[in-house]
């Protein structure tokens, strides 16, 4: 009996190692290709060890696309979207958690209902609107549709009603605090952990966003990193070493941040989808 148990454990570890290998191998392979000339791709047997072209390939990326500009644009888009969503969500969450007002439930349910509308339904009119206001090829145009985040309001309402005691709000009120002052000085310090959760969800999602930015950004100087990366793949004579070099350098910052905060990342994703 005991021996049989050990064998099953062996298979469990084997399964995990295989799964882990498949998860990590593309990252390693991306690194290998980013250090090799494009010709290495055609070699048989395949090249599986890093070469010396790490810098050369990246220089080719820089010639082809404004890589750092695109990274900077993405960072701006992600930071602004995250801050705006945090602000809108926490204020609305505070209102739904701690205030009584007519129509509260209807408003809350209608926020949840907006989640059902697929983003593609509005794509054409949104594009038209953004074009009409002269926001094509601007970062504001690239970020505006992501300010809407019903999930954020839902999470914040949940968190505020659980972790901010009514008594605290009442006491602050008796001390003569205005509602906004209560939000800033009482609620905000308590909900910082929820900010981390929602912030990670919004930031990662915005970082990976493609369809909208692909639609509204045509000027290479305004590209976000995803649009810049995809643009490398559209010429007929593609340089694989260059493409994977671009992908590698665009991915590695996120991987490092993830490895440093992986527990926080993972708990954010579960909290964000299960609550």
């Amino acid at each position, binding site marked *: 009996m005991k021996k049989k148990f050990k064998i099953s454990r062996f298979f469990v570890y084997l399964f995990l190692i295989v799964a882990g290998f498949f998860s990590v191998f593309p990252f390693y392979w991306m690194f290998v290709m980013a250090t090799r000339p494009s010709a290495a*791709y055609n070699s048989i047997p395949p090249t599986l060890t890093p070469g010396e072209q790490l810098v050369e390939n990246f220089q080719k990326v820089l010639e082809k696309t404004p890589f750092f500009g695109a990274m900077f644009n993405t960072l701006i888009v992600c930071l602004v979207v995250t801050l705006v969503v945090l602000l809108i969500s926490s204020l609305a969450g505070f*209102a739904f958690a701690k205030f009584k007002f007519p129509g509260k439930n209807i408003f809350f349910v209608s926020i949840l209902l907006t989640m059902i509308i697929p*983003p593609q339904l509005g794509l*054409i009119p949104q594009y038209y609107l953004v074009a009409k206001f002269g926001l094509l090829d601007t970062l504001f145009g690239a970020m505006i549709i992501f300010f809407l985040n019903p999930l954020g309001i839902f999470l914040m309402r949940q968190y505020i009603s659980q972790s901010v005691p009514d008594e605290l709000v009442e006491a602050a009120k008796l001390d003569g605090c205005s509602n906004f002052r209560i939000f800033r000085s009482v609620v905000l310090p308590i909900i910082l952990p929820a900010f981390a959760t929602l912030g990670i969800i919004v930031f990662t999602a915005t970082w990976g966003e*493609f369809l909208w930015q*692909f639609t509204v950004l045509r000027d290479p100087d305004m590209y976000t990193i995803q649009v810049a*990366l995809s643009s490398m793949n559209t010429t007929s004579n593609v340089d694989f070493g260059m493409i994977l070099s671009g992908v590698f350098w*665009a991915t590695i910052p996120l991987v490092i941040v*993830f490895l440093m905060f992986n527990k926080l990342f993972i708990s954010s994703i579960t909290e964000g989808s299960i609550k």
Partner: protein
Amino acid sequence: MAFTRKYRSEETKDKISAYLYISPFFIIFAIIGLYPAIFSLFLAFQKWNGLGEMSFVGLNNFKVVLQDPIFWKALYNTIVMGIMGTAPQIIVGIILAFILNQAYLKFKNTFRAMVFLPYITSMVAVALVFGVFFSNNDTALANYILNIFGMDTVAWKTSEWGAKIAISIMVFWRWIGYNTIIYLAGLQSIPKDLYEAARIDGANTFQQLRYITIPLLKPFIVLTVFFSTVGALQLFTEPTVFLGTQAFSRTEAMTVVMYLYRDAFSLQSFGTGSATAVILLFIIVVASAINTYLTSGIRKKGKGIKS
């Protein structure tokens, strides 16, 4: 809150504050959510190239789209790739989560982080990396591996099943960690003494999985199935980036959203594009309804077995 009753003016102030605090969402929603959605419904009945005059054409746009074989091909592709990309995730995700939840497991956090790692890469990055892995060349790594096993080279980007399989594998690879983490959270909510009681009763691992894990995990499975269905119907980035220049000129992996995008932004036919968007909305609503119906049915059955 009771104290507001004492001060009537306080109560009014609270109401004003509350409306003020929820208003940003509704104002932004009105401009970039509701108005575009209604405008889409309106556009679906117009002929419009985005610049000139609109003209009312009744149901003609829907007729054009529904009579277009490419639309049906796109819908077929979307469903096939949706099923191939997401259904295996449920099975493998549950197995992975079950294993990661074993108390004796060492390096648990390391394995968990490894499996989750693909999720933090962007879909564009995934499509580009897999685009090199699954290229048409004989020397593509994927083809090299096939050749080792004596199979023929596949034209991954231009063949009917090659493109679909490559894209499904990408979707699977990127999302499996996400689903696993959700299932893992579900498993951790199942009390441990249930397993202990089952073990004492002589249930083996498979029976524990069948009679404890799966039924109690059902709400989490329902959640991921819902997300996967809606996500799969909106597939766009992976095939577009994977196919590169050929994305909108070939149909092996064209999805409904790509069809919509092509109509609107390459062919300047905003009317049929909007009609496609409305059809997509309809498909998503129907698919979600079927999902809810099927999963609630399973849930009832599951309860029956348990009691």
